[in-house]
């Protein structure tokens, strides 16, 4: 029981981080990014590849990934998604277009990753066992959790106590109103999208230290991140954290008590309950 609690909580740290990334992309830039999971796996691939070929520590990779992912995601928003934002007449039309476009991108990412590494991204880093509260887990899980918490906290402070952070939050509340008060909405959206993608890639690099991924696993992470975002309420950071903890615990519980193959089914189960009883999310105020 304690084992489930500890490893579930440690897992939820990275989940919360990844969901924050998606929240920025969907809640602020209003792009339903179905390539989110693939960006995560790209981060994981970077960590795996640099560690196995050059023995670069995944922690260092996290720092290296930040500028690359930021520029990459900014370029994607600027050149591939901005035309769609301009073309769309309504939020619904943008959603359909962005779903299809990011879907296409996800396949392109998978194709690129398969050509780099077709098998599992397997490597061992900090895998010695440690004991927390009497429950044994591995060091890499703890390190990933601590780093995820650190990055999430930095993001939270940035969003709440700096001018650009406040602008990002304003756009998430209303694009029209923030345009009226002099916020450069296209630039803020691009910033939020790029930042969201960066956080996702960093999350991927962290996850890869304790879960073995492969090129085609991205969609599962997209789905989990989406479920967390919906459960927490779109645009709600605290909600995403609580939702990530719930998902982490339920998943670990199902994996240990029933079968590791049913974690996705567990996520769906939560999803259905949320859809039926609280579609606006645990912390959401308005119906989305």
């Amino acid at each position, binding site marked *: 029981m304690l084992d489930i609690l500890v490893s579930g909580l440690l897992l939820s740290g990275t989940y919360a981080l990844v969901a924050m990334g998606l929240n920025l992309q969907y809640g602020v830039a209003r792009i*339903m990014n*179905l390539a989110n999971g693939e960006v995560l796996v790209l981060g994981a691939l970077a960590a795996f590849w640099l560690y196995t070929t050059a023995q670069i520590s995944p922690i260092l990779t996290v720092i290296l990934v930040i500028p690359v992912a930021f520029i990459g995601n900014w370029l994607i928003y600027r050149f*591939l998604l901005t*035309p*769609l934002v301009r073309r769309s007449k309504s939020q*619904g*039309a943008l*959603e*359909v*277009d962005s*779903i*299809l*476009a990011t*879907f*296409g*991108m*996800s*396949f*392109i*990412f*998978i*194709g*690129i990753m*398969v*050509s780099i590494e077709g098998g599992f991204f397997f490597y061992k880093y900090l895998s010695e066992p440690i004991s927390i509260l009497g429950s044994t887990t591995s060091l890499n899980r703890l390190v990933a959790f601590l780093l995820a918490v650190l990055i999430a906290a930095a993001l939270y402070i940035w969003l709440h106590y700096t001018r650009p952070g406040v602008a990002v939050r304003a756009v998430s509340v209303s694009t029209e109103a923030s345009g009226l008060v002099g916020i450069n909405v296209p630039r803020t959206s691009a910033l939020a999208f790029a930042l969201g993608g960066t956080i996702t890639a960093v999350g991927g690099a962290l996850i890869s230290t304790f879960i073995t991924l492969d090129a085609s696993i991205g*969609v*599962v992470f*997209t*789905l989990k991140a*989406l*479920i967390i975002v*919906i459960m927490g309420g779109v645009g709600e950071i605290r909600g995403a954290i609580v939702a990530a903890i719930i998902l982490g615990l339920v998943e670990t519980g199902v994996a240990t008590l029933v*079968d590791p*193959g*049913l974690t*996705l*089914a567990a996520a*769906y189960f939560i*999803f*259905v309950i949320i*859809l*039926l009883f609280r*579609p606006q999310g645990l912390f959401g105020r308005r119906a*989305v």
Partner: protein
Amino acid sequence: MKPATVQELIWAGVLVALAAFWPMMSNGYWLGIGVDVMMYTALATSWMLFSGPTHYISLASAAFFGVGGFVVGSGMSDYDASFWSMLALSAVIGGVLAALIGLATLRLSGVYFVIFTLGLAEMIRNLVSWVQNNFLGSRGLYVLTDFTDAHLYWMLLVTAGCVYLLGWIISRSRLGFALRIIGGDETVARHVGINTATAKVILFTTTGVFGAIVGAIIAPRWSYIEPNQVFSPQLSFFVVIMALLGGSGRLWGPVVGVIPFLLIWNWVDSNFSNQSILVLGVAFLVIVYFLPHGFVGRIEQLRASARGRS
């Protein structure tokens, strides 16, 4: 999406009649392609029934398809049931599954629906594998029938014809009109008194029924059924891409998308099999950026400009 005309129905009838002769003119490789074409035509047209007017992108095709294949496999292999009774049962299960998904997600905005269908096939595959491993013992199922590819082709042709006919009837009915209004603006639809959720659930259920039927008909082709194979998520993406490539504005759109896509895909897959998924991604982007209304939209645009000039 415009209401279909009588002229269109006549053309469709002629096409079906002509297509029925394909197995007599071809065999082996080309008959196999014909079965694929018919399978995807039926799936993409039934996808279009729901997603065409409403603009809700369903990625659930693989789930219904898999359910159909699996019900036939399990019924014939574990319970010695006949193919036809299992075909009927799979249609019922597909319909019930779609109705449940529809009731859970279609009352809300479209995004929830897309997300829900995104991992559905994978989730059902996990559940089915788990049930099989823990309670049924065996992993694979055998479907042994006397059907040849030609039989399957004709069954799929009939299914595709039925889907088209149903779509034709719906598009000229009150329900079809309601769906077009929902697709135009859901808030308006609600305000003029349309029960939007019911209309969407009914349509999505028909998609589920036909998806399961197609999966059930294809099952004898494989003869050995495994969850990993029948619940391949790729199928959902194929259906979406073919339907959109054809164009979502017309009921006959998918037919125009299925044939060129399958021919190109077969060529890519046999020559550059490592990069095939990359090609799939590029195809999606091409549709979004250059062919937003598919081939049908392009054809109608050209026709309109030709008329404007003369």
